[in-house]
């Protein structure tokens, strides 16, 4: 691409496990080719060369859990033509949002001997709660093939081809026999597609790591779970994992419990 300006990519981290940005490095067959057509301008986990902004595309991992990070994401937005969140933490608050159902001071005291050293917010919020987001890629973790699709789409200026239907459709495509009909509670009917319906293919129920699909009927699914013997606490726990504060999962989880 000598002579022409390559689009510039940046990767940012907030509260997270690093798994979603690792997905980019997990593109073992595509990484070197990708680096030919785009300029990986800032990706601290992979490179100590930091190029200053602005950037054409920013991939943002992690949720906002500190006042400092709430400021930092605004600066990232200012430097980014397009901003895409990658994964459940950045898109939905992630597992860190479990603090929303508890007293965060109590959480600090459980983990840290000197709570006065710890500065944290009482909430873990998605990036969209702080700045405009151009696209949200779901999953805990994201699917690396979907990541490549999103990067490609933004670089040529089209909409990413990422389906919003349920995991059930992916099971049908994969030819997996429904685990619910075999008596295994599954969140697949209300969960956003993208993983490829891995859990049912491994003979377990989907645990909802891609978050709610568009217009999920969570109440109907909860009734099915009850019919299979799930307790209210089982249902609440299942809905409160990695996408617990999404509206659909939060609302349904509040209808169950001890």
């Amino acid at each position, binding site marked *: 691409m000598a002579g022409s300006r390559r689009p510039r990519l940046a990767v940012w981290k907030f*509260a997270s496990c690093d798994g979603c940005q*690792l997905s980019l490095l997990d593109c073992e067959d595509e990484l070197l080719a990708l680096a030919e057509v785009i300029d990986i301008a800032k990706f*601290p986990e992979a490179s100590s060369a930091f190029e200053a902004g602005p950037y054409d595309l920013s991939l943002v991992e992690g949720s906002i859990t500190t006042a400092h990070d709430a400021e930092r994401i605004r600066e990232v937005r200012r430097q980014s033509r397009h901003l895409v969140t990658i994964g459940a933490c950045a898109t939905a608050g992630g597992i860190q949002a479990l603090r929303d159902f508890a007293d965060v001071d109590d959480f600090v005291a459980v983990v*840290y001997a000197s709570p006065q050293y710890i500065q944290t917010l009482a909430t873990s919020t998605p990036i969209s709660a702080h700045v405009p987001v151009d696209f949200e890629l779901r999953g805990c973790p994201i699917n690396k093939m979907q990541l490549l699709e999103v990067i490609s789409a933004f670089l040529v200026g089209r909409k990413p081809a990422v389906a919003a239907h349920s995991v059930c459709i992916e099971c049908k495509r994969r030819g997996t026999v429904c685990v619910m009909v075999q008596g295994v509670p599954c969140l697949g009917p209300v969960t956003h597609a993208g993983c490829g319906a891995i859990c049912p293919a*491994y003979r377990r129920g989907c645990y909802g790591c891609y978050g709610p699909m568009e217009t999920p009927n969570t109440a109907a699914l909860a009734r099915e779970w009850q019919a299979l013997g799930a307790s209210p606490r089982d249902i609440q726990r299942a809905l409160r994992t990695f996408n617990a504060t999404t509206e659909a999962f939060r609302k349904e989880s509040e209808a169950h419990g001890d």
Partner: protein
Amino acid sequence: MATKTVHVDYLARVEGEGALDLQIADGRVASAQLRIFEPPRFFEAFLRGRGYAETPDIVARICGICPIAYQMSAVHAIEHAFGVQVGGQLRALRRLIYCGEWIESHALHVVMLHAPDFLGFPDGIQMAREHGDMVRDGLALKKAGNELMALLGGREIHPVNVRPGGFYRVPSRAELAPVGESLKRARDRAVGLLRWVATFTFPEFERDYEFVALRHPGEYPFNEGRIVSSRDIDIAIADYETEFEERHVAHSTALHSLLKRRGAYLVGPLARYALNFDRLPASVQQLAREAGLGPVCRNPFRSIVVRALEIVYACEEALRLIADYEPPALAAVPLEPRAGNGFGCTEAPRGICWHRYDFEADGSIRAARIVPPTAQNQPSIEADLAAVAESVLDQSDEVIRDRCEQSIRNYDPCISCSAHFLKLAVQRT
């Protein structure tokens, strides 16, 4: 009286967010701090009230780079609490998926994160312009490890197939066969990688570490054994808290682990290797000697060679496990929850990962304690930083900064588990 402060505001090519502060006064290092500002993540708090069965899925989210380590330490602790032993082919499959994690994690670090330090590149991608074959081999190795993770775990990051008692589904011999073929090529690539990194120039630097690792009667350790040290520690996993403690320091959101009697210690590849050299197959021992390694290596910069050697070992071990594999009749041993404590400790790529859970009678978690490898290495990293900086104090700030960053990367630190690198500010007074 010259004093100066060297700061690295953001560490690169490490997992998570950290910075470095070095204070120099009168030509001596006055203090070296690895400042971890990764936002606090409250896993031990989230786990209270959760069910034992969902624990492997939750603790995986501590780390996207080594989720199997967290899942394995958790399932062993759960089984310990409920009085169940998982043996035979289920145990073998656990070793096999751990081989996959060691291969993908070590290959990523050796080629993409650590080798650029020795060859003067900012990253693996730019290094590929001059060392394309080695980078491509490294990525192919990483892919082979990930294939193993994806087959046994369902996916590479946050695998879904591990459960207390075993797995949700076990593979057939036919499913493992193609992975075996790619592992044979991976084994050869790993030997090539080992020979390449052995040619790097290493700073002359050694420290008298107290190494801590698992030791098993017959195996190079993954999942089981006693916790031993290069001095006098030889204890059961359940007795960890008698010798080790965690301290909360102001400059870090990661707790520092220390030996109660002696302070800093080292976990990870150098420790595992020094304490278990005799457990490596003769073929791997021979490769170690050819790569210039004695049975003990105290130079942290040479940890890249030990990691490459462990990739070779993990490929060979995986091939052995696949050759001997017979699918077990049951994918998981049934468990009956009961009240009590359980302990688990396994060898994550970066060192021992220790877990304790206290369960209610219904299998809900009453309390959890998780000690990740990087938290344990933090005091040792700071001691290395002080010693390394001292050895290059007469050189430019640029050299001091680079050598310090490299000293931190020697550990393949996973700061999210328990950081990124740097801008340097130097104050001279």
